[in-house]
């Protein structure tokens, strides 16, 4: 027994001395490596198939769009200049001399192919709805027209012409997203379904290129010497480590093994003075199914529950105030005419605090219209995901509504995918849901609720709302367009069509030895393109 213990002790000691973590020296000539973590692997590095924040984040580092978003501002990318027709429908973009990581020139045809691939039904991009604003996009995506009828064309090797179905100022920003990036037809033909499955099965035209990808383990990006603006890129390498447990990731940051880490809400207090806070664009709200036979078809009832819920208490209890109570629908951070929409059009459809008097007033009106005498006879099913967090959230809302209105709320928890399925099939009454923006414009939220929208799961129908949106899609007058969208937002909330709840504020820790890390809220969350080691 003694001998055995000795052997075990020796083995442990050996292991300890052999590979104990060493303190890293930061001398000026050492390669500049930036390391951060995700809880789960990047689902895909295929530019047109990207369908998540992590994929979008990696994509802006390894691909360069016709444009590039630099801290929320549209900057030139592979396109060095562009013109937009006066009706806002035709974009003509001039490409600079730039090369792929394998040395081949980047041609307008590569963009034509990439954008066609996004809408090609045979390629089956899960994110193809992003391109539905292109001319003929819907017909192409449903196979009614061949892909070459899509509104994108290489006029010559260096000129791309894109035609839209309706004017959209935000389109230049969308062009920075990987779904609209250049893609090499020869490589897709060569690798077929395996395209972009491993680093060598694609080429890169962004600031970095993929060096190594071990699934659910690590993704290593290195500087792309062929990038057209390579002299502006200071980092030599970006390591993305997959660490499923957020507590472990935090411990790794503290031990110096990571340079950027997300702080889970439970730890925010501990790191409050060192953390950086940003809105990641996620906007949570409750969808109300107006096509049901129950009370939700009644506008007064929908307003009653909207006034009865206390959004401030909700975020204080569930996230210790990390998330922000949201009294409106459109994410305030999206672009308005000249500044942020929220600053140009301040508005609160409901208070962040509950208004029990108004709630009861609307409930009384609803009950007399529905011929109900006893509010406790009103029963609603509140659908949510089967996590502990969702349960806690649902119980708070249940408690607030039951106490203020005296109605009965039954919480039903189902797996995430089933919840989504039930939303799409409209087999729910109330569901805790949300939306992340796809482009910086109020329309990214407002397009959900037109009568013909595939995302209108609550069956909201308002001729006025549809009219505002139709006008905003037609006009080229920026102010009039924005006013129309603001009117639509007010219309939606005065009809109580949804219950806005919260905006997600994330907190991250960033190694102070680096400068230039920026966060964003559309398509990607971290931008490390211009990161450098801080001067001592």
């Amino acid at each position, binding site marked *: 027994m003694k001998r055995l213990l000795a052997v075990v002790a020796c083995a442990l000691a050996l292991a*300890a001395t052999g*590979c104990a973590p060493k303190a890293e020296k930061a001398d000026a000539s050492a390669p500049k490596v930036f390391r951060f973590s995700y809880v789960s692997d990047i689902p895909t590095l295929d530019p047109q198939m990207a369908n998540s924040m992590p994929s979008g984040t990696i994509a802006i580092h390894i691909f360069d769009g016709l444009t590039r978003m630099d801290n929320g501002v549209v900057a030139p990318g592979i396109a060095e200049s562009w013109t937009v027709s006066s009706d806002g429908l035709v974009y003509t973009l001039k490409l600079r001399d730039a090369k792929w990581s394998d040395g081949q020139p980047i041609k307008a045809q590569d963009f034509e192919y990439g954008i066609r691939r996004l809408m090609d039904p045979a390629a089956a991009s899960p994110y193809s709805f992003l391109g539905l604003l292109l001319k003929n996009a819907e017909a192409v995506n449903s196979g009614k027209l061949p892909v070459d009828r899509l509104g994108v064309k290489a006029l010559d090797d260096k000129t791309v012409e894109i035609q839209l179905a309706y004017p959209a100022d935000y389109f230049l920003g969308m062009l920075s997203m990987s779904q609209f990036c250049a893609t090499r037809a020869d490589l897709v033909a060569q690798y077929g379904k395996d395209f972009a499955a491993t680093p060598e099965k694609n080429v890169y035209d962004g600031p970095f290129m993929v060096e190594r990808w071990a699934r659910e383990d690590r993704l290593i990006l290195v500087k792309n010497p062929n990038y057209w603006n390579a002299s502006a890129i200071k980092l030599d390498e970006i390591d993305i480590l997959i660490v499923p*447990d957020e507590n*472990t990731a935090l411990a790794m940051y503290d031990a110096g093994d990571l340079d950027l880490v997300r702080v889970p809400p439970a730890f925010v207090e501990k790191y409050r003075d060192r953390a950086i806070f940003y809105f990641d664009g996620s906007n949570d709200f409750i969808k109300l199914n107006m096509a049901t036979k129950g009370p939700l078809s009644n506008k007064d009832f929908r307003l009653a529950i909207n006034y009865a819920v206390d959004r401030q208490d909700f975020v204080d209890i569930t996230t210790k105030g990390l998330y922000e109570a949201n009294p409106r629908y459109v994410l305030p951070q999206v672009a308005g005419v000249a500044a942020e929409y929220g600053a140009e059009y301040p508005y609160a459809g409901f208070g962040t605090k509950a208004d029990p008097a108004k709630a009861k007033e609307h409930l009384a009106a609803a009950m007399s219209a529905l011929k109900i005498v006893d509010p406790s006879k009103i029963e609603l099913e509140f659908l949510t995901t089967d996590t502990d967090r969702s349960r806690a959230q649902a119980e708070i809302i249940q408690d607030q509504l039951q106490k203020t209105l005296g109605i009965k709320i039954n919480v039903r928890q189902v797996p995430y995918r089933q919840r*989504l399925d039930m939303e799409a099939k409209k087999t729910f009454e109330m569901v805790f849901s949300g939306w992340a923006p796809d482009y910086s414009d109020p329309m990214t939220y407002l397009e959900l609720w037109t009568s013909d929208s595939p995302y209108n799961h609550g069956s909201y129908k308002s001729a006025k709302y549809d009219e505002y949106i139709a006008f905003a899609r037609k006009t080229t007058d920026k102010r009039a367009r924005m006013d129309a969208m603001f009117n639509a937002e007010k219309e939606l909330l005065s009809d109580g069509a949804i219950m806005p709840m919260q905006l997600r504020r994330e907190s991250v820790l960033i190694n102070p030895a680096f400068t230039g890390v920026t966060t964003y809220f559309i398509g990607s969350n971290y931008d490390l393109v211009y990161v450098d080691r801080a001067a001592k």
Partner: protein
Amino acid sequence: MGRYIAKRIVISLATLFVLVTVVFALVRLMPGDPFSSEKITPQIRQNLERYYGFDKPILQQYVIYIGQLAKGDLGYSMKYANATVNDIIAKAFPYSADLGLRALAIAVSVGLTLGIVSALNRKKPIDAVCVVVAMIGTSIPDFIMGYVLQYFFGIRWGLLPIAQYKGFAYTVLPSIGLGFYTLALVSRLMRSSMLEVVQQDYIKTAMAKGASRFRIVWKHMIRNAILPIVTILGPITASVLTGTFVIESIFAIPGMGKFYVTSVQSLDYTLVLGMTVFFGAFLVSANFIVDILYGIIDPRIRVSRR
């Protein structure tokens, strides 16, 4: 023996076939589907279903799947677009196998030693120590064990790396964390089995014959007492080698467990099926090997099976 092995192989294959069929059906019965997302439209869903061949009748899909499976092709994952299930397993399994073998080696060697030492020193202090160790091992869940090891050896004392899997030092904590439960199980089982054997008449006979203590313990006691351990070794090996999600999560190891859980959560039909088939094949072969081992260790079984 040859006929016996042939029979076992046929039964194993039949078991696998039933498993594939049942899982194929069950996976499709789960509510929701792999394409559900906040932003999917009916048109995009239709395009995706065609891309993955889900627009065909379910029986035809089953026949296609079995045909591919017979060729060893597990298909493309949906969650990890463009990646094949074969490739995912080929990359993830070595991590789980490496970790599992280390954990198993620790568990079996230390577990057996503790069990034997404790049985031979019954009711002495050393027995009490071994019993306490076994009790701790069986009663503490692996996620607590993982965090405790990580906290003290990794974070507090900085002796070993906190996470990742990049060399020997990185393997120590997860191997112990993963193997501790099995270690405790083996030691308890071995102890009770030894105590039972000690009572047997043939031990008394051996003693009366004047055989040496080493010979009695080694040849008569351990060889007989070890049989129950061999029995549980099959399933234990399979489960430890194919990964446990918790330990892999805590120590950020890209093994099978992580992929298995993710595939179920995201309803990645092909990945769930592929991993289940792989896990099933592993379990079936582990049991098969244990059956053969049984015959080698215990002559009585060999004879009765002829």
